[in-house]
């Protein structure tokens, strides 16, 4: 074999190797146990501005450079919301790899902005885990985001006389990737251990 053929073989191997690693990294779908991974179908979030539990703005830009899990609910929800937040807290605890759990930020987004002020949200989310964030916004600012995620919500039976009303909402957990794209969805009921394995697989496959 002469020198130029060695160079050509080496080049092919190099290109092939890059190609393979690119394929393994980006194209290969992550198989999820407990949800759907959108892969190439991931789509950019619209611009939005919510208010977080500290009263600070939470925008599309805030989601860049981290993995985000969003659950939409309301604090006056006795059954589904505590179950879902407890599942997220249990998931967080079940992730062994600190690099993985540090890369995932969990948000509880209230679709009941009238009752769920930043103060109420802070107390609520920290009851489940001190690293969780809460956020909300007036419905006109919230709905474009929820609509783009396919998350439905509606306030029911609200009267002026009573502060007790129901809010219907999707129980799915939305996954946002570090490019602030809608990357996956975990449907209810949520299995914390399966979600922990899924998030570990996702973050290890796509490190920040």
């Amino acid at each position, binding site marked *: 074999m002469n020198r130029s053929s060695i160079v050509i073989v080496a080049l092919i191997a190099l290109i092939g190797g890059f190609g393979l690693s690119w394929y393994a990294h980006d194209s290969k779908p992550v198989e999820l146990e407990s949800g759907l991974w959108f892969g190439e179908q991931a789509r950019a979030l619209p611009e939005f501005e919510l208010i977080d539990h500290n009263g600070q703005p939470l925008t599309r830009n805030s989601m860049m450079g981290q993995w985000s899990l969003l659950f939409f609910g309301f*604090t006056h929800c006795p*059954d589904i919301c505590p179950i879902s937040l407890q599942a997220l807290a249990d998931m967080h605890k079940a992730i062994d790899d600190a690099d993985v759990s540090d890369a995932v930020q969990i948000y509880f987004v209230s679709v009941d902005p009238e009752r769920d002020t930043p103060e109420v949200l802070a107390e609520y989310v920290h009851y489940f885990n001190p690293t969780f964030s809460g956020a909300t916004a007036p419905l006109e600012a919230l709905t474009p985001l929820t609509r783009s995620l396919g998350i439905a919500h509606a306030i029911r039976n609200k009267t002026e006389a009573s502060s007790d009303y129901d809010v219907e*909402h999707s*129980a799915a957990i939305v996954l946002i990737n570090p490019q602030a794209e809608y990357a996956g969805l975990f449907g*209810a009921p949520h299995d914390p251990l399966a979600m922990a394995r899924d998030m570990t697989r996702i973050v290890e496959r796509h490190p920040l």
Partner: protein
Amino acid sequence: MNIAVKEAVRTAVKTGMPRLALLLALLLPFNAFAELDITQARIKNLPPSVPVRAGYLSIHNPAQFSVSIVSIRSEAFASVEIHRSVMKDGMMSMEPVDRLTIEPGASLQLAPGGLHLMMMHPVEATRPGDDLEIILQLGDGSEQRLMMKVIK
């Protein structure tokens, strides 16, 4: 009438007068002591700024006849209702349930994600470890008291 007699029977039993208890019990119809076996009675705690809690029960009816729970009250909450979480048009919502009927020998679970007690406006702040009493009003007019444990 039944309730007063049952209370008297209980008092007689507690104060060590079994004969009186037996005598009083004869005043009751044969099914008046139909009581539900209730286990795992628990309330999921939430922070003080949230005025609702969900309560869960595991109910078994050991009797030969069906038993209904028609209403529930508690001195620890302004109101207690029976609710069911349901998926409707892709959204979770809650619907009130008028009564729970447990068939003879059957069991019924009030568990996360389905049937639950909607316990509104705690009179005092609830803390994990607290035991709170609720009173079930049964379909035959009798009552059953039980303690529920507040859990984290």
